[in-house]
């Protein structure tokens, strides 16, 4: 295990040191995640805290949101697993990223966090919140975010898994951060569409993960069942092209 650890720490060190290395070209990835089963109805949250305020927003369990119209799965996370990937100049490191406690939920529900950017934890609600961030390699935090205030937070290490954030005061509040040392993280929109732009051309390994599914280890692609070991798939991005995988169906049986 020492060997493994040494390797990892070397890798992590390299990851931290990685900088925008010139790539030979840039392409895009597009994919739409579709639910392979009956559209689940998200459970209503039993709001039992700050009922007067939180109770009026019709909160639902956001663990698995499937579009009734087109069965698109929201909030599926896709990211590049490779280390030392070149970063396209269009990505600006100075931009802060905002996670807002608003209407007694985290907005957005899933937030990519590029380690070069600063995370702003905000509370737009008139009630107090706290944000418990259970990071794995970075120090976990759990500060109170008083109503109307903002707290700055930075991360230095890539997290090996999506990081859960929660509020102890409002136990239903859950969200996710995807803390990576590159900006190539896509989150599915309400139609299940994920788009990652300006990816360095070449073969890269992409990770597919969803909150209730975990690793998307099995999908249907063009009518055929394909196994993605641990939700990973190697794709080749062509210079100047958009690789569109089309509709990728996630079987309902994967939902925990």
């Amino acid at each position, binding site marked *: *295990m020492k060997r493994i*650890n040494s390797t*990892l720490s070397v890798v992590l060190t390299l990851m931290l040191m990685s900088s925008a290395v010139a790539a030979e070209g840039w392409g895009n990835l597009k994919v739409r995640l579709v639910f392979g089963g009956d559209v689940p109805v998200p459970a209503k949250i039993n709001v039992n*805290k700050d009922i007067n305020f939180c109770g009026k927003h019709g909160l639902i*369990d956001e663990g698995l949101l499937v579009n009734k119209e087109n069965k698109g799965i929201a909030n599926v996370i896709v990211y590049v697993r490779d280390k030392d990937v070149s970063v396209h100049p269009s990505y600006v490191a100075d931009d802060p990223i905002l996670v807002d406690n608003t209407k007694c939920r985290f907005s957005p529900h899933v937030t990519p966090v590029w380690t070069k950017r600063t995370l702003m934890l905000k509370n737009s609600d008139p009630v107090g919140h706290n944000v418990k961030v*259970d990071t794995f390699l970075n120090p976990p935090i759990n*500060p109170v975010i008083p109503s109307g205030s903002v707290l700055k937070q930075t991360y230095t290490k890539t997290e090996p898994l999506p990081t859960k954030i929660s509020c*102890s*005061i409002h136990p239903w509040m859950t969200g996710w951060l995807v803390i990576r040392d590159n900006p190539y993280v896509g989150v599915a929109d309400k139609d299940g569409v994920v788009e990652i732009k300006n990816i360095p051309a070449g073969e890269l390994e992409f990770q597919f993960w969803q909150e209730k599914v975990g690793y998307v280890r099995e999908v249907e692609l063009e009518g055929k069942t394909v196994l993605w070991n641990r939700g990973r798939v190697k794709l080749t991005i062509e210079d100047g092209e958009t690789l569109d995988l089309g509709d990728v169906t996630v079987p309902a049986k994967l939902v925990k």
Partner: protein
Amino acid sequence: MPATEQTLRDQKRLHVVFGISSVILILSTVWMFKADHDRQWKQYQSKARDINIQMSTWRQLEFETAQVLKSEEEAVAALDATLVAPPSTKLLDSFNTIASNPPLEIVSLAENSKPLGPLVDIDFDYDVLKAQVEQLATPVDGASVDDLKAIRIQVIATLAGVVKDFKDIEDRLLGELKFTRADYDAARASVGLGVRDGVDANELTARQKKVDKEKAKIDGLEANYQAVSNSRIKLKQILGDIQSSEKDAQRELDAVLADKTRLQAAVSDLHSSFLDGGLPGKKWLELPVLDAFNSPLKIENKWSDDLEQNYNFSMVRRFDRCTTCHQMMEKSLPGEATEPGFVSERLVQIELPIPLVEETANPEEGVGYEEHRQNLIADIYGLRLVPNGLMGDKVVAVSFVEPNKPAARAQVATDAEEQLADPGEIAGAMLKSTGSVSPVSANSLQRHTRHGLEVGDVIVSVDGNVIETPDALARRLLKIRPDVYLEDELTFEPIVPTVTLTVKRGLSHPFVSHPRLDLYVGSLSPHTVSDFACTICHEGQGSATDFEWASHTPDDPLTRKQWIKKYGWFDNVHWIYPQHPKRFIESTCLKCHHDVTELAPSDRFPEAPAPQLMKGYNTIRKFGCYGCHEVNGFDGPDKRVGPDLRVEPNTFAAAQQILATTSGIPAEHTAALDAVVESPESGAAREKLYALLLSDKEVSDADGEEASVFSEDTHSRLTPLFKGSDTPGSLRKPGPSLRYIGSKAEDAFLFDWIAKPSNFRPSSRMPQFFGLNDHIKREHQEVHGDEAYDDPAERYEPIEILGIVAYLNNYSQSFDFLEWEDGVQPDVSRGKIAFEERGCLACHSHKDFPDVEDFRAVDSIVQGPDLSYLAAKFGTVDTSENATLDTQQQVKWLYTWVREPTRYHKRTVMPNLFLNAHDVTTAEGEVTGRVDPALDIVAYLLSDEGHNWSLAEGNLTHAAIGDAETANLDGLMVEHLKNAYFDSVAKEYAQTGIPADERSVKVAESELLNPSGENLTVDQKLLYIGRKSIAKFGCYGCHDIPGFEDAKPIGTGLADWGRKDPSKLAFEHMHEYLHGAHGHAEEDHGAEGHADDSHADADESLSGVRQNSYVNELPGFFEEAILGHNRTGFIYQKLREPRSFDYHTTTNKNYNDRLRMPLFPFSTEDREAVITFVLGLVAEPPREKYMYRPSERDRAIQEGARVIDKFNCKGCHVFEAEKWTLAFGEGDFDLSSASDFYDFAESHFPEADVSASLETNKQSLRTAVIEGMPVLDDETALPQLFDAEFTPIKFPIFEDPISPSVVAFTPFQLWRPAVVDGVVMQAGQRLPELGPSQVVDRKPADGGDLARYLLPGVTAREKQFGNPQAKGGEAWAWVPPPLIGQGAKVQTDWMHDFLLNPFPIRPAVVLRMPKFNMSPAEATKLVNYFAAKDNVAYPYDYSKQDDVNAITESDDQYNATLVTQNLIESPIAGRRLEDAMKIVTNQNFCVKCHIVGDFVPEGSNKAKAPDLAVIYKRLRPEYLQRWIARPNSILPYTAMPVNIPIGKPVSQDLYHGSDREQINALVDLLMNYDLYTSGNTSITSLVEEQKAAAPVVAPATPTEAAAGAEE
């Protein structure tokens, strides 16, 4: 008679006689010298010396490695560099300034002084010196180092010369000063004499002038002396500074060479040869004859310090010669003071990694191939071999192991059963207290399993091929040189191939070092050999120097045979203190450690010091041996013998008996009796009652029984019990009370239970009293040929049992059942959840919850019985709609017992769990029903029918008593009555009872008083038999039985049993019994061996989850001990087959004289443990100073530990977190210190600890010890596990078909601060990438069995019924809280009161702290325990008044600030706490979760936090301050957020001040909440006020504000 020359004897013959006797004398002298020369110990000592020399010689090789030689060279070079370095010009200038300007006074003095020689004769030419220094600074070409050194030596010599010159002047001045003082004294005397003699004034004046002159001289000289001395000291200092670098370099070199020099000195000291440097060596003195005089080989006498032994007629100070042969006892490994230098011999399998090396070159010229191969082995493996071992034998031995080379990194192969199977097991092991599976390779800290080859190891074989020479090993190792590596599929790391070496490690006796040098013998241990010597622990004849006379005792038959053959060993019966065999050696600890509990693992000795003794002590407590066998801790008034295990005084039972058997008791008397029943430990209550009883007896004596309140029985039998004792016993009876048994059990069940407890409950601790006489029958049938033998036991035992049942029922007292609320309906499924969650499983087992056993230590005492299949005992409950529960007595009884245990048994340790009925409400607060958890639990326990259990066949019932039984009953009556009356009278009384006028009727016989004279009924007879049988078998020793309150235990007292003379033990016909094939379990079980089978039968029909297993094994050691009439054999057989001693003896004794000892479900290990304990009960306390005397804190911890044990606090609460020892490579962890801590909340470590954490061991690994728990998974509340690629491993189901053996990481959260890899880690921080293979030792969590078991369950239920987003990582907050740091947390008074009257604190917890049947004294001990554990003051010394004054002062300052900053116009008293209260009641902070007085926040209980209004009574202020500042550094699992992060105070609108000031104000407010609220009682109104106010926004920094705006 004339004289003749004739001698009386014939001279010639005398010459012959003289000649012969001279020859005999010479021969015997020669024989004597030879015998002396051949003494065993000389050979051992000589061999030990050879071993030491050999080891020291090998260890010197460590100083010949390139690295060490390099550092030696570097040190020499560094020294050389300093020896040619030019001195600093600045220093030289300073030197010159002083040296060239000697104090002027010296010069001026010369004129007026006696010639002192040249006063200033300083040989110092600075120019010359500077030239020399210049040569050093810029050496001329061709100048050698030696030239430069010579120049520097000259420079130094010149400087030293100047210092010496100054010293000379100083000395001369001092001499002159002394002379001048003498002259001065003479002059003064002369003046004095002049005055006396009346000399004239002139003369007197002249004399005075002389005095003045001398005085002036002295003053001048003194000034000069001081000036010169000062100059000299300064010069010397400068010279020291100039030489400092070379001195430092010399010290450095000395340090590098120190170990080498020490080893060389050791070898030189030990070396013994005939020629030593051309002179005769020491070896000559070891030659025969010469060695009788001053041989280097000497007998070693270890005089113990004041320890004595009994030589029968006098006590003699002990002196032990054991180390004469056992030379290595104190030897430890170099650099490891407590690690034995030479362990006992054992074969070890070692996996040696094969490194990949380039093709090796051919040998250099002049180097042979064999030598070349050895060099290669040294280079590649870091291994040097020699063809002889430490014992001088021809073997392949390791003489050198280079650190960080393959030989040092070789891994000891784990045993097959220790291999890790899959992550599920690993995770389970991490979570559990028990189980063979551990994430570690089984205690790799022990020498035998310590990784890496060691110097002295003998390599026996390589991959199974025997190795005979170093070259053969070298050839084989060099042949295995793979040039292609395989890669790990997952990590792509190369797989390093290995070979398996079979290695013999250690030496045989007597060349073995003492184990556990941390505890014994070693200079750092509490039992140093210089104070204690050997025999005080080991026994034996310490003065002996021969093996056979030292009274060694073999530990097994094989050793015994070997010793007889090798040493002529024999059992020396004349030495009454033979050594303890190894298996019982721990018994001796009891001599000084009377209370035993101090021998549990502690902070100082984390490895259990005496596990076997502890097991024995616990077994005795678990099975209640003390109920019959008194272990009172004393033999006589002042001789301590082991622990005091006496049962507490039976006063409460006696008071209950008086209350139940007396009618018309006046209220005062009733109150006094009740007081004793409720608080038997209260001396005042007991004394008051005793006084009342005595005065009542006086009334009775004076006016007759009718005039008194109480009966004669009360006066004579029960009153003395209340007299009291200075040192009463403290243990409760091990069995349940039978005072109200009639309300609990049916007759048929009672019969079955008494006849054979294991029939119903195989795990029962109640021993078997009946059905143990088969061997008697077999004896008569097989030995005496009496096939028709009718054993009285078979006839009488059923009668005895029936009698006991009749007695218990007849005297059972009326019981007041508790009633449940009308309309509450029980529910089995609800009951099952309540049974699991409400605490029952902390003390009980149940077959439906087998997993809880995984969280219990194997040897832990599970307080309560296994509750599986209770329906079989009580009958199933009918919960159908139409059933009437009130009529089902079993329900009523169990309900009462579960709800309020003390109602049934006043002294039970079963607590009141507060299982009160409560409303069921919806989330909206609507009441939908009412449940009674106690009734639910009863329904659940009585619902179980999943068994096929039935009463044993042939059980006798009252209804089935026929003629035969009646005859047996009569026969038994006569058997008993014969003891009191003549046979004929006995027979008569057996029929008609005892006439009323019979005098001196004993208590039992009074049962038969029958004034009517008519024949006794069966019931009357049964009552008598019952009473006699209870007395005979001593049932009251364990149970509270009416009528037996004053009965004494029936067993032999065990004080001094460890010394019991075996001749006083009745071995009877044990030899015949064993040889009649009864004793050999493997051949034939004999009569009682069937108990084993019957247990097995029972297991099939009715199995509990926690078994006690009877094992009928008779190991050879004990068989020999029995046959040799050794006391250990006696106890073993007593515990194995207690009635076997009746073999061949029953024919000639009465039925009632047969043995009564019951059969306990013991295993062989249990028996050995019990024997270890009993052997330690010896009335030979060493001198007082050797008695274990704990410090005040240690005593508090030990006393508290006993209370914790008694009430099974560890059943629920974690007392110590997991403790893991890590070994890891540099860079394995990427750790960083937490930076955002307030200084008061941060733990600090000495710098030495930090640097020590960076040191590496022989495997080049760093080590650390961490305390905490694995991080729990949010989904499952089980430990998080990841594979090498951070894929979460969910056990037992895996997401992917990955290899199950790759648990790469186990995130671990620290619960205590630690230093890891040079980083100070605070509690709450994590080691996310901790791999199981980095854990080299693991101590599971101590306690919290139920809490740890409940974590996954409560999480799942919360997700199911409460909050789907519930997080397993927070589940610790819902189960009984860990008590780590409890002493530093709470105020002692509060905790004391809380223990006696617990109330709910945390709404989120699924169960309540129960109320224990605990005395105030016990609560105090617990409180002190926690405080002592955390090393905080107790009792708590918080001064409210001081605090109040400080608060007033702070309030003034706060007001002043507000006024200064124009925030208020004038001071407002109490403003500071008012403002602090604004933080509490603000919608962003405390009141979001905390209850505060009358305010209760919204939400489920899981999200509610304790009431802040009462914590001023509970918490210590320092704790509260740390808690507010950084909650998770105190409780790492807490969901409480950081409200005031460092540098980020809450809004100034709430409280005007810095972060710290705000925290301090909150602490002041909460710690003085009572004073604060004396004027403000409604918090709700304050909360509402805050709610109504506009939301308070914390001041955002410009950047933050901007960012917020942008987003």
